[in-house]
């Protein structure tokens, strides 16, 4: 017994001060030389400001999309072959449907957990695109896209486009009445492109609409090609983030030459993993309690059927709204037709918007003649012109989105549909123009406010025994107080305090 114990102690001593972990890392470092880089990575500092978490919402909803999506591919059949549905949902019994539709209904009703996974997948998609937009707005309004981060901005805009495109592809796959109408519209939009439109539409759909090629083609794009590109670009996005290090808001101890915050390990790791769980939890709760895209109620797509009040998913809404309000100006001459009523709102408009987004960093460099490298962020009010321009574009998009539900608005407020549409035509033009000066003036106002960003503290009013009232100020909120502690680099070694119990949450290691 004692011999055994001694041997164990000796073995432990032979392993060195860091035990088996240290031994394993030694072996790894012998082969890959990871010690320096790994240590630096552990020390990478992440700013603590909450707005830096917005991109993480997008990243983690993408993770959920991948996980739930893999589940769905196990049961979904990407085929336009016609079968007769005989399943548990009575109103569809005996109807001729495509295999794509049948398998989607079956995976919702007959596969254990299938409906939850499908709904989580759809909700995660809505959240994914929404989080990208919010993250992008944060980056835009704080000037985080400025030199040296223009490339990462470009990657981000590309990711937004890919997310929207893949959302549309996935939305189309079940081949239900609502999504089939969306595909029909997409076909017509392709058809509207001058000169090459008919060829483009025929090549994508393998012939005239609807054809049988489009579901399998959309499927492989949706589950393989586009996700691979997204994964590659997200990796590049994160690599650039690590390489260029984070931006940060100006403040106590923060300069262009440092980053202040929490280290990768363990603080950020704990927070971000927890956040991943929370994103997954919220998605699952939405999937549990809020029904999304009940395709069994819509029934299978049939080109002669149509439902009123059909709208695309929210991120395509601005295109639908633009198509609704654009006047019927078609160009017909010289034996050719250019369907401007489709081409302009559905092709030219998004083309212009996304190209402006791509070009914005260069555009701003040119306008401001600012070619410096920036790591400290702007407060939106410090850059009234940029903020106003962004607010203007967001207003335009919001108005176009609202215009995609003119019928819902008319029904809700008991207005004439025609009136609402005319109003939206006016509002789409007027509100973005008004948004610019209004935002500009508000920014100018905020610049004049002293102590902006700091919350006001209440005054405490007390009444003395004599009935006298006294007002006294309360101390500032904890978060608003300047740091009492100087920021310092992450320590490499921690000396144990002799005879002191370890503080909870702090691991001390033996040297």
């Amino acid at each position: 017994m004692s011999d055994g114990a001694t041997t164990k102690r000796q073995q432990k001593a032979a392993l060195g001060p860091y035990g088996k972990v240290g031994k394993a890392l030694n072996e790894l470092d012998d082969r890959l030389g990871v010690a320096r880089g790994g240590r630096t990575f552990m020390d990478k500092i992440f700013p603590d400001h909450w707005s830096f978490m917005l991109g993480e919402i997008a990243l983690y909803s993408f993770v959920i999309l991948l996980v739930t999506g893999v589940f769905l591919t196990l049961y979904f059949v990407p085929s336009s072959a016609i079968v007769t549905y005989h399943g548990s949902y009575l109103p569809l019994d005996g109807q001729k449907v495509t295999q794509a539709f049948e398998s989607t209904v079956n995976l919702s009703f007959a596969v254990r957990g299938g409906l939850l996974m499908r709904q989580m997948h759809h909700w995660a998609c809505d959240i994914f695109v929404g989080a990208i937009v919010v993250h992008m707005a944060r980056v835009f309004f704080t000037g985080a896209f400025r030199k040296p981060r223009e490339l990462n901005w470009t990657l981000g805009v590309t990711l937004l486009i890919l997310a929207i495109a893949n959302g549309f592809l996935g939305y189309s796959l079940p081949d239900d009445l609502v999504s089939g109408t969306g595909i029909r519209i997409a076909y017509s939009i392709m058809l509207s492109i001058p000169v090459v439109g008919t060829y483009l539409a025929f090549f994508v759909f393998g012939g005239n609409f609807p054809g049988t090629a489009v579901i399998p083609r959309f499927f492989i794009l949706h589950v393989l090609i586009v996700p691979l590109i997204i994964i590659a670009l997200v990796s590049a996005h994160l690599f650039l983030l690590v390489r260029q290090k984070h931006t940060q808001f100006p403040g106590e101890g923060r300069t262009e030459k440092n980053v202040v915050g929490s280290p990768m390990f363990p603080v950020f790791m704990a927070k971000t993993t927890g956040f991943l769980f929370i994103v997954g939890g919220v998605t699952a709760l939405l999937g549990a309690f809020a029904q999304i895209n009940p395709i069994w109620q819509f029934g299978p797509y049939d080109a002669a059927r149509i439902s009123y009040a059909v709208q695309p998913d929210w991120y395509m809404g601005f295109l639908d709204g633009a198509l609704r309000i654009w006047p019927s100006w078609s160009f017909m001459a010289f034996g050719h037709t250019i369907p401007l009523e489709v081409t302009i709102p559905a092709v030219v408009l998004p083309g212009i918007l996304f190209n402006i987004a791509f070009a914005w960093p260069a555009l701003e460099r040119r306008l401001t003649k600012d070619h410096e490298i920036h790591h400290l962020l702007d407060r939106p009010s410090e850059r009234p012109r940029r903020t106003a321009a962004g607010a203007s574009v967001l207003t335009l998009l919001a108005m176009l989105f609202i215009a995609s539900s003119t019928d819902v608005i008319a029904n809700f407020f008991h207005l004439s549909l025609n009136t609402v549409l005319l109003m939206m035509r006016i509002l789409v033009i007027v509100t973005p123009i008004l948004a610019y000066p209004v935002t500009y003036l508000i920014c100018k106002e905020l610049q004049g406010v002293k102590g902006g960003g700091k919350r006001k503290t209440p005054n405490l009013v007390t009444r003395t025994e004599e009935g006298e009232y006294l007002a006294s100020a309360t101390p500032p909120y904890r978060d608003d107080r300047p740091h009492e502690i100087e920021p310092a680099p992450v320590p490499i070694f921690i000396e144990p305090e002799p005879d002191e119990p370890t503080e909870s949450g702090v691991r001390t290691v033996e040297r």
Partner: protein
Amino acid sequence: MSEHDAHRTPVSLSSVSANDPRLQPAAKNPGTVEGVIAVTFVVGALLVAGFGASYWVNAKPWILGATLGGGLFFLGVGLVAWGKYLMPRGPFVEERHALANSQSDRDAFAAAIVERGGGVLKRRKLLGGLLGGGLGIFSVVALFPLLRSLGPLPKGTLFHTDWRAGTYAVDQTGRRIHHGDLSVGSIVTVFPEGTENTDRGQAVDQTVLIRISNDNFTTQKGRESWGPQGYIAYSKLCTHLGCPVGLYEQQLQLLVCPCHQSMFNATNGAIPQFGPAPRPLPQLPLYIDGQGYIRAQADYDQPVGPGFWERA
């Protein structure tokens, strides 16, 4: 180990005491927080286990989602709280080094490309040109079969439907439409007989048949014979984006597209009256044969559906 750290910027705190204020938890009373976190972990673990159990017994979707979502949420909240309140509160700082290299490094890089590569090309312009030409041809050739084999050429398919002189109008069940079938103010979707169950029939040939009056009805000059006994037929494909114009308001006499609310005047050759559609719905000339069935006089006189470049 000091050798290994030599590359690092001078570190003021390479080794600190565990009492350093930055290493202390942010929470004022860590014990309580630890208790709360422990509770969230226990609740989370129970819910995740409940998810497994409810999956095993094939519970309703909302129970699966509630247990899974709740479990993940509580575990996540606990983990975040651990990181936020109990781990070293910092603040910590990291130096930011300029990414740019020295000018001589840049020059050396540029020289490697320009001098070496340029030298090679300058000496062998012919080879460079030939290689470029070959690659150019390859890229065009690679593109051609890829694109070309994706689908057939459009040719005339967008210009014609399957309606012919004498084609019977049938509903989706294949039943021929008799002139007594519809009363004034009625609508039915019809197809050329034989196409009612085909993709093409549904996507291209679909036609709305409405009855406007009991007498022959002329929607426009030159169409005097097209509307026997008040039966009028228009292509069901919206000229805006090809949605089925299935919405008929019989008092307003409007055909409305449910997608983008283009409104077509049914009495007047389906001229667009409101909304984004640029052209009238093409009208199908009809006649009623000796047995009283509705048939087409001919195909549409123009391409149906949305606009495209080749359309005159």
